């Protein structure tokens, strides 16, 4: 009964190359070239969806207008993570995530909140995007959001 069971340890090693598509490519290009954040408007429900989507999944309608939103927004919910998962987490714990509704957008979006004492993050807090110095074409082109100290 006390026999040691063999445990076969391995990792799946499969490379991936994900196409962002035209819409997300434009979204990231606006960040890279102009430091601007864009959502798209659903012509049916009139919501401005952030980040920019080709279609509104709720209405099943193609979006039409590109609408500049943010870079400031409001925290609608947040969490502070206390465990380390270094293979995926971009910052060491304790790190904070928030649902942020950007000014001009009708949906919220998850992103990191940093340059703040995590104990001071609150719902309703105003934050603004901090852009990465060298954009890579992924969501960390917005490095994180930080509290707006004034204005």
């Amino acid at each position, binding site marked *: 009964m006390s026999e040691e*069971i063999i445990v076969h340890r391995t990792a799946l090693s499969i490379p991936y190359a*994900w196409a962002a598509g035209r819409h997300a490519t434009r979204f990231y290009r606006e960040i890279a070239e102009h430091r601007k954040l864009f959502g798209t408007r659903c012509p049916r429900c009139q919501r401005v969806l952030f980040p920019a989507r080709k279609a509104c999944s709720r209405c099943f309608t193609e979006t039409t207008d590109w609408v500049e939103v943010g870079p400031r927004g409001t925290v609608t919910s947040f969490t502070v993570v*206390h465990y380390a998962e270094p293979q995926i987490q*971009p910052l060491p714990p304790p790190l904070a*995530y928030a649902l*942020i509704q950007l000014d001009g957008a009708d949906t919220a979006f998850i992103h990191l909140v940093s340059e703040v004492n995590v104990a001071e993050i609150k719902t309703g807090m105003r934050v603004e995007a901090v852009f990465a110095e060298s954009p890579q074409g992924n969501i960390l082109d917005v490095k994180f959001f930080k509290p707006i100290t004034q204005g």
Partner: protein
Amino acid sequence: MEDIAIVGVAQTKFEREKRDLNYAELVYGVVTELFEKTGATHQDVDNIVTASSDFWDGRTISSMAIQSAVGAYMKSESKVSSDGTLALLYGAMRILSGQFKTTLVVAHSKGSEGAPNLIANAAFDPVYQRQLGIDFHVASALQARAYMQKYGLTEQDVALVSVKNLANAKKNPYAQVAGDFTVDDVMNSGYLAEPIKTLDASPISDGACAVLLAHADVASRFTDKPVWLKGVGHCQDGYYLGDRDLTTSPALAAAARRAYQMASIDDPLKQLDVAEIYDAYSYQELMWTEALGFCQPGEGVQLLKSGVTAINGSLPVNPSGGLLAAHAFLAAGLVRVIECVLQLRGEAGEHQIPHAKTALAHGSFGFCGQTHCVWILSAER
């Protein structure tokens, strides 16, 4: 739905790590136990529906490894890559089609063999979200806070769910986590992702479970205590968490509406005797009881505090301890069904609800309850 019965159930004990059995052997064991209990043989199984995950199993076509274990050779087997409650639904559809008399439904997962947070992170789309490093705990924490803020709940309020369910689990021999915990114990169990603490979150489990479905024509061959499928509904919500109102679950409400309508239930709180629901996190039990119509939105905590959902209340919720006591991914919903069957057959042992006649079992999948499946089961045809 009156023509199909669950004629047998089996589940493993759920544990953090079952190193002595690989997952095909785990499945084989639970299927063998089901056959022993029902007197069914391999030949009595017309077709098989399984639930498993390529990511959790670390294998493409996760179902391939269990073909022999479920006896699929030269039979029809299909894999639902979602919660086991949906596999049960697919199994029932196959009998309702008139082409099969029996379906074996099996779900398994060995959470110990993968890296849960990495697997969870891989469910976030790589275009807009994955690089953020988010996982199940993060998504659920954002939902928990949004919900608690909206209705003014404290972390102590939510901790009461863990206190109730983990105490219930002491009476469930299959449970992995159980004990007499206090609100303080939950509060002091350490934050994973605020406001969720270790004892607010379901554990990671190894385990498997199996259900034998039979048409009314043949049900008596396997049991004299069939449990009848009376109603079912399932529904999927939107994907991006920020697109949804996380404080409510219209998808669960829609799934429940369909199931209730099919089962002629218009007052669930009165008509149901027991409910086993998918509390992957403590706050979810409160939210889901609201969406299931047991109480008004925001009143889940009052329902809990009033004792209605306690094991000796008028509608006990998770007398087994629920997911907080054991959470084998993909199997957890089907375990809820199995627990309801035990209740309706009077075989739930120490956590038996006296005279249970009508039960609700709930399964879910995806972040913050993106998809839901609700079953109504009855001891009476």
